């Protein structure tokens, strides 16, 4: 009898399985419950597959999307709708990295404890509808992206990607139309591009930290040079230059030689250190594309790698973090698009390196780009004109301003649009002027 009664414990084995399974279920419910509840078949928050509760506003309360019992609407202003499309997303989930795709659980006000509620969520974003609209207009039909963020608080003011469409109208264009190439992608977070000369900031940081004679070095530019058996062309005929001057006029000969001396591996190492080859996660959940800077194995390739060509690819969001770190004493405050949510920070470089890079970038503006082109902005920046091999180039302009009350870092990238100085810098100026003016300065 005792034996039989002891074997009754077999039942407890099954009970343990029930408990274990419940543990698995609860774990999944905690981690994925929001996604489950946001599923379009959930008639508690959808009416015929259309969200019926929740809203998203910009930092000033401008409605970007709102759901009601009868209809779902986006922002009132058509430019704002287009400018914020990639941040906000659309109901159909066409933009996978958008708030409506990633944070739909917050939009419907889901929580593990209350489930879905009758009122829906009221989400507030850090973006500024006005600044975003200005950026959208400034891009003026170019495919590209404009990113602006407060490097002290992490708040993203502007994250515009083009081309887009008016979500209120829905997709009325032919998706194979080249004018709409990559319309479903937020270029700021999901794409990588050849950086061109903006990458020289990585090279110069590597040189600064590893070459004791950094400030004494000079090179002579005669329009081109043979480095490691490869001909490196320069846009100008610069004569004898220090590294500082070479950065300001973006001399390929200076940086080609620096690259050959530093070696491809070291440059790749610095790109990695600055987070340019890492996939990040905006607000922990929006995935970003990882750039890649493969180490060149010979001096010629290293020269190309050093000037942001070779096989270098950079993600605009990752580059924005790099700018934020330089602006903020080497420590990047992680960007956030959800108002009131901070995402921590990370030390990317020493304060001394950040300080020197900051001075070099200011020098660029003072002696090369012309401060009068950027009135009222305490600008630190670097241009980039990335050749993509077919005669066209990506126009880059990246940096930050140190205006009081407007501590903004920015990245402007216009795809196959021409030179950084000629195309991207004016866009940046327009957007920053707007950003500074709305911030009260």
């Amino acid at each position, binding site marked *: *009898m*005792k*034996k*039989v*009664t*002891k*074997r*009754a*414990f*077999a*039942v*407890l084995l*099954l*009970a343990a*399985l*029930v*408990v274990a*399974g*419940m543990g*698995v*279920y609860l774990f*999944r*419910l905690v981690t*994925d*419950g*929001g996604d*489950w*509840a946001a*599923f379009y*078949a*959930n*008639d*508690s*928050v959808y009416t015929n597959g259309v969200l019926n509760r929740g809203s998203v506003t910009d930092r000033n309360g401008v409605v970007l999307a709102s759901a009601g019992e009868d209809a779902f609407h986006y922002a009132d202003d058509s430019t704002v709708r287009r400018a914020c499309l990639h941040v906000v997303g659309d109901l159909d989930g066409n933009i996978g990295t958008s708030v409506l795709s990633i944070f739909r659980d917050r939009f419907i006000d*889901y*929580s*593990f*404890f*209350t*489930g*879905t509620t009758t009122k829906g969520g009221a989400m507030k974003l850090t973006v500024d509808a006005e600044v975003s609209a200005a950026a959208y207009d400034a891009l003026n039909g170019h495919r590209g992206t404009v990113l602006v963020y407060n490097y002290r608080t992490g708040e993203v003011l502007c994250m515009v990607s083009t081309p887009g469409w008016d979500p209120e109208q829905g997709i009325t264009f032919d998706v194979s139309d080249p004018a709409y190439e990559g319309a479903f992608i937020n270029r700021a977070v999901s794409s990588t591009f050849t950086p061109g000369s903006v990458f020289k900031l990585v090279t110069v940081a590597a040189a600064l930290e590893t070459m004791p004679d950094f400030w004494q070095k000079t090179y002579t530019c005669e329009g081109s040079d043979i480095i490691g058996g490869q001909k490196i062309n320069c846009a100008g005929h610069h004569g004898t230059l220090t590294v500082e001057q070479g950065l300001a006029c973006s001399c390929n000969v200076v940086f080609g030689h620096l690259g050959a001396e530093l070696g491809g591996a070291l440059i790749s190492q610095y790109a990695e250190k600055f987070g340019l080859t890492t996939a990040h996660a905006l607000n922990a959940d929006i995935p970003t594309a990882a750039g890649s800077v493969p180490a060149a194995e010979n001096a010629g390739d290293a020269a190309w790698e050093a000037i942001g060509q070779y096989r270098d690819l950079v993600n605009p969001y990752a580059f924005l973090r790099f700018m934020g770190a330089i602006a903020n004493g080497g420590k990047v405050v992680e960007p956030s698009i959800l108002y009131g949510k901070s995402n921590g920070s990370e030390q990317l470089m020493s304060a001394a390196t950040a300080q020197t890079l900051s001075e070099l970038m200011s020098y660029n503006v003072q002696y090369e780009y012309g401060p009068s082109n950027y009135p009222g902005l305490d600008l630190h920046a670097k241009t980039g004109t990335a050749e993509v091999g077919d005669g066209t180039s990506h126009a880059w302009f990246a940096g930050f301003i140190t205006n009081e009350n407007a501590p903004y870092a920015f990245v402007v990238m216009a795809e196959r649009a021409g030179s950084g100085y000629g195309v991207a810098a004016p866009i940046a100026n327009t957007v920053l002027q707007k950003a500074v003016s709305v911030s009260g300065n």
Partner: protein
Amino acid sequence: MQLDIVTLIFGQASGTLANISRYILPLVGLAIVTRCVRSMLRERYEPETWAYLYLAGNVMIPLRHWECILGRARSVDGQVDDPSVERMHACLIRSPRGDWTVYNLGRGETYVNGEPVQPGGAAIQDADVLTLGQVSARFVDLTEEERSALLKYRHAPGRRVRPGVTMLLLTVFQILLLLQQLTYNPGAGIGVAMAFGILATAQWSYFAVVRITGQTGFEPEILALFLSTVGMSVAASKTPDDMLKYIILFVVSLGLFVFMCLWIRDLKRVKSVRLYAFFAAVILLAVTLVLAPERNGARSWLEFGSFTIQPSEFVKVLYIYAGAATLDRLFVNRNLIFYIGFSAACVGLLALMGDFGTALVFFVTFLVISFMRSGNFATVFLAVAGAVLGVMLVVTVKPHVVARFETWGHVWEDIYGAGYQQVRAMSAAASGGLFGQGAGNGWLVDIYAAETDMVFAVICEEMGLITGLCCVGSLLALAGFVVKNASSGRSSYFVIAGAATMSMMLVQVILNVYGTMDILPFTGVTFPFASVGGSSLIACWMLLAFVKGADMRANASFAVKRPERFSGGVGVDDDGYDAGGYEGGHYDGDGYDDDGYDGDGYDGYYYPGGRG
């Protein structure tokens, strides 16, 4: 006009009340389950004593069961630590009538009053001397009076945690559910209200009658009533106009539960129809296989006009009824082999019917029963091997089972196809949060088979995760209860039947809940008591009798016969217990054979060494 205003005000008031009640309901559910668990844990589980063995030096061995093994081993019921005694030396068995028989089990020698025990066993009575090897002991049988006197040292449940209060809480739970149904469910009206009313009336009538007859253990019934109530709310959400059928089925279930409890009071009676249960189970399944039309790839439903039954649910009762066994049968290998054959027939027929989920439930129950019966891992291993082959066969033959396995873990990749039901279940369950959207306020119930195969998700959506966990917790509590009771069981029959019942229910919980949530393949098994479905409800209540039959606390269960109450007995509470059903009072002392019982050997009392 005035009426409109009244209606409006009433409507708003009930709306507000219902909103508040959404947060109270799961907490009341939690209180009900917690009270039952507390009661089950805190009550004493004192063994009964049926006889004593006195060894030299006044060493006393109490015999706590009707089936006791004596020997040198630690795992026996009466340990006699002497080198001349075999590890498992002899077996003392008390018939339901109160007569004791001793059997020799091993190579050792056993004597009663100096006479060697023959292979057919020997009767042993009060004051006889039992000799095992070199050790002699005096056998002292307890008379009814003596056992009645001992009763005062045993504690009846229900004093620390009063079942009446728990019943009241259950009624509150039902009122809140009804309020929510009437507020949220546009289809709910007088039919739903009456169904809840009849449910409450039935449960209180049951409580009153059983309480008046002196029983104080109500935890299993209350937990089952709780689950049935939740199931009734799901039925009201699904088919508010069809509540009459549900409530009739519930009353029938309760009636059959009472019948089963009374039936299993008498072990002799139980054993006398076991063989019929074997055949009934196999025939029922075979008839279903032949007659049932194919529905969603399975032939498991018999249709009589608009009325359908699922015979496999009733076979569950028969299977456990026939599968549990008394200790004496456990020593005979051919009994186990017969049982394995019976099980293979059941599982095989279910597999042929295409009811893979139920086949799996039977298979796991089979494993538990055969383990408890034999403890022989080699036997179990062979069975596993055979079953694995069988499962492979099922999987290759039935495409819809294969499809279920292919979807497993990937339901979100196929939201329009094979994952259609589960993604909706997960979405609705998450949407409910801890407290639920309100009974009758869900949408999942409109999805195909939600009220049966995905009932856990419906519960979570409408009544909250807390209520869902309470439902699972109820069954875990019953399982723990059965295990706790096992140590004081009279006969291994009840211990095995109770454990098998709860194993079966737990497997159903595992397959139902985790199939719905994509943790396991979706097999379409019902959740005990809570899934809407007549056959399943009736079968679960009948099975609950085995849990009651295993409840050995004093005065706890009317499924367990109590010792006769003697007017001259000492210290027995005069609690109005009606002894009318008790047949053992006229102990005539002439042996056990006065009604042909066991004389023909059919019942399988094993006579070790005999029958060469």
